[in-house]
């Protein structure tokens, strides 16, 4: 049975360079019951908003100018002055290639959502963020939500982190 979680207290920042996509995403989020939605057209505008307002979740596109989504996520996670270092980030993009998904994980996104945009998958990502938050991990080359997809209390198996520092773990 579906859970009818009440998202009205969530504050979401939508970042997309396409006004049309921002519009449809905003309306979909409203349909899902999200109460506060702000929009930005690229990473720089998003950063400015993050510096002035509190948000609970970011949904960002990848390809944007002048600052793209990947650069925005890197800044959020690693910039010494980041105003929202641990904020969950959903990367919503037209990219579907495995290499891009891996790349997104490595820069510290929380969830990856490939277009076409569908309310059901958007809802699933938000539910997962609420119900199954992952711990953050800091290594010499990575900072972000744990890349091991399953949020197990203990990992049984070889410690790949020890031997493959840059390995992508999903």
């Amino acid at each position: 049975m579906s859970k009818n979680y009440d998202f009205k207290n969530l504050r979401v920042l939508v970042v997309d360079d396409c006004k049309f996509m921002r519009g449809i995403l905003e309306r979909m989020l409203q349909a899902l019951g999200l109460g506060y939605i702000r929009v930005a057209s690229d990473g720089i505008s998003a950063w400015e908003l993050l510096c002035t307002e509190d948000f609970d979740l970011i949904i960002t596109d990848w390809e944007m100018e002048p600052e793209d989504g990947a650069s925005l996520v890197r800044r959020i996670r690693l910039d010494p002055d980041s105003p929202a270092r641990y904020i969950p980030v959903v990367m919503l993009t037209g990219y579907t290639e495995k290499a891009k998904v891996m790349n997104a994980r490595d820069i510290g996104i929380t969830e990856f959502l490939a277009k076409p945009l569908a309310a059901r998958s958007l809802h699933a990502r938000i539910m997962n963020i609420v119900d199954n938050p992952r711990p953050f991990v800091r290594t010499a080359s990575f900072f972000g939500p744990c890349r091991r997809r399953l949020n197990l209390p203990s990992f049984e198996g070889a410690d790949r982190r020890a031997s493959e520092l840059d390995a992508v773990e999903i």
Partner: protein
Amino acid sequence: MAREKLPEIPADASKSWHAVIDRPNDLSRKVLKSGGVEPEKAFLAADAIVKQMTSEYIDKLAEDIQQMNVLAAKYRKDNSEETLDRLFRLIHNMRGQGATFGFPLITEIGRHFCRYVRERPKRKAVKPALVDQHLKAMHVVYNQSIKGSGDEISQAVVNALAEVVDRELA
């Protein structure tokens, strides 16, 4: 706004060093577990929004096709990376929107175009003729308003593009 410091890496950290940072689940506290919109109803509402916006999408697609023609003509003249990049960004956005509004062939053709432009080996120059083939295919889908996966001929054209791109990327 509380800024949180990036966890430091110890100076004597070994290659396998890592820190796991457990975070309080703030979102779970903000999201009430009942009283929200019934998900299935929300999905239906979202579907209705997409349906309502389809005519806007068709208008936008017409503008994008026109813009694509302008950029393609410019690219044929100046052969510049900058123009190609603008064309890439336009088509990347078209790719993201197509399937959302029932035009998966726009998404598929866009995907092959984007792969070709961004993933080709650096030693290989972009072939304007191959760019044009993608644009022609986009034109056909738009002019004939081919929704869904199209007929056998449409599929054959898209598959042929995929094969050529695969060869170029090899």
